[in-house]
């Protein structure tokens, strides 16, 4: 297990390094001179020169990358050109909206998917299975931001159970915060829940064909008992992997959903930064998102090996 973990750790470090080089290349090398790009065509030469000095563009590209990457390791993401605020502080504040939203959505999607997937698998081929599978087929096809708009129309505008947008803030209390994130989280959770339910069902159906399930039935367990006692635990391996992968999709998906609900999260930050040409902020947010995806995949790999010891010896 130690050798496997070390190998994965090495691969994690390489991935993060290469990803950071790629992001640096696109943001800081591709536009030519980032300072002129950020200030636009009509900028005065002395303003451009001042920004160049501030961004540290006078040194070589390799040195710039090294300075940027090493500062990031200490939590210093630079200073936003538009807001004149440390980017780490801005990200820190927005994180408290985006991260809870992704986690809330992940919880909801799991809560929807497990019962639906288990129910469909247990009733394979019967009416219940057909209804659940039809619903998941529809769930996968619905764009989450459109579903979000429909939720606003029904639950915020017509029924007035929730606000149509904005975030009350955690300082108003935990439940007030959760209440503001409920419609966004449901919108994010629906398609992911539909995918997860399908994975759950097919994993369970695969398991049901295994010899140990036949043995369980042969020793007198009913179909349902065998499913609960032996099937579910074994079906968890692919399901857990998908849950891990979904987290990164939820974090990226929350960027779009934040636009629908005007939530002050990472998504709004990055879009404001794009329109203000604040490359420092865009670079940091993108790096953070990619870091999150790579990190979650690394943890899923470790969890996978922990659950299934065969994988440890194979790699």
């Amino acid at each position, binding site marked *: 297990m130690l050798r496997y973990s070390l190998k994965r750790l090495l*691969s994690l470090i*390489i*991935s993060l390094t*290469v*990803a950071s080089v*790629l*992001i640096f290349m*696109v*943001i800081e090398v*591709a*536009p030519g001179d980032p300072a002129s*790009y950020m200030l636009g065509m009509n900028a005065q030469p002395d303003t451009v020169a001042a920004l160049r000095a501030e961004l540290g563009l006078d040194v070589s590209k390799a040195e710039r990358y090294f300075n940027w990457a090493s500062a990031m390791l200490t939590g210093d993401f630079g200073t936003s050109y538009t807001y004149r605020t440390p980017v780490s502080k801005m990200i820190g504040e927005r994180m408290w909206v985006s991260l809870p939203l992704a986690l809330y959505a992940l919880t909801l999607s799991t809560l929807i998917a497990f019962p639906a997937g288990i129910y469909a698998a247990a009733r394979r*081929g019967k009416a219940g299975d057909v209804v659940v599978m039809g619903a998941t*087929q*529809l769930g*996968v*096809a*619905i*764009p989450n*931001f*459109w579903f979000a*708009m*429909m939720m*606003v*129309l029904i639950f915020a*505008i017509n029924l007035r159970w929730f606000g149509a947008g904005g975030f009350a803030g955690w300082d108003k209390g935990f439940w007030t915060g959760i209440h503001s994130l409920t419609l966004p989280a449901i919108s994010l959770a629906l398609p992911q829940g539909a995918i997860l339910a399908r994975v759950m069902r*097919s994993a369970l*159906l695969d398991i049901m*064909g295994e010899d140990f399930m036949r043995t369980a039935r042969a020793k007198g367990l009913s179909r349902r008992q065998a499913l609960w006692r032996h099937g579910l635990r074994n079906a968890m391996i692919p399901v857990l992997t998908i849950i891990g992968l979904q987290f*990164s*999709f939820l974090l*990226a*998906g929350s*960027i*779009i959903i934040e*636009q*629908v609900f005007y939530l002050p999260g990472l998504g709004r930050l*990055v*879009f404001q*930064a*794009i329109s203000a*040409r604040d*490359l420092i902020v*865009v670079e940091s*947010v*993108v790096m953070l*998102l*990619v870091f999150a*995806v*790579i990190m979650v*995949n690394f943890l899923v790999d470790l969890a996978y090996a922990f659950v299934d010891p065969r994988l440890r010896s194979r790699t």
Partner: protein
Amino acid sequence: MNRNLILGLFLSSLVLLAALVSFVWTPFPHTTMNIPQKLQTPNMVHWFGTDHFGRDIFSMIMVGARTSIAVALVAVGIGMAIGVPLGLLAAARRGGWTDEIIMRANDLVFAFPSLVIAILITAVFGAGAINAIIAIGIFNIPVFARITRGAALSLWEREFILAARVAGKSGARISLEHILPNVMNLLIVQGTIQFSLGILAEAGLSYVGLGAQPPTPSWGRMLADAQTMVSFAPHLALIPGMAIILTVLGLNLMGDGLRDLLDPRLRVRRS
């Protein structure tokens, strides 16, 4: 033919037909504004109603289908054109460093969701349909590389490949002549799925302003425009949304149907 395939083919053909017909005919010119006729609900003249500029929504949906199909199709094309050869190469050099490098590079690209790639490209080069295509296309590369490699690996162990090797064929020739035709079915099915995901991704990117720009009509941007008017003109959001859902649903059903048709083993195991 199974029911999924028929329904999927029907829905997909409907959208494709709308897109093709829009090149020669739409009920109204899709860019013509007619303010006195604005925000009409569906009626006999404007079948899907009109938007806040009085433009005919049915015509916009027809032309929007072109954008969605074009972006998703080219993005799948990019993914296949680069991903499939990479997957074939990785499988031919299985266990070697070429395989390792290709697969690790794939993992790395996987860490950049298409939205994040789009954000990166847009921040530096500006928004547009081409950037959406590139962003979705790049994300498709590892998908096709992985699926091709996975299927090709098991084929390399089969007797007919061994026979080809004994006959003195090179790895590249075996990959092209024997492996590729045998993974084609799988690629068609995956292509359909990626196509539907491409439609969803294009809609999402256009919605947040990173995709097609005005005056090019796009379902995603129609939804973005509808957002502030959803309380008094819900049809502005309902109709483009339904267009996206029916297209994606059609493609997914077609993918499922094709899988059952092309890979009967799976049908037996799953039913």
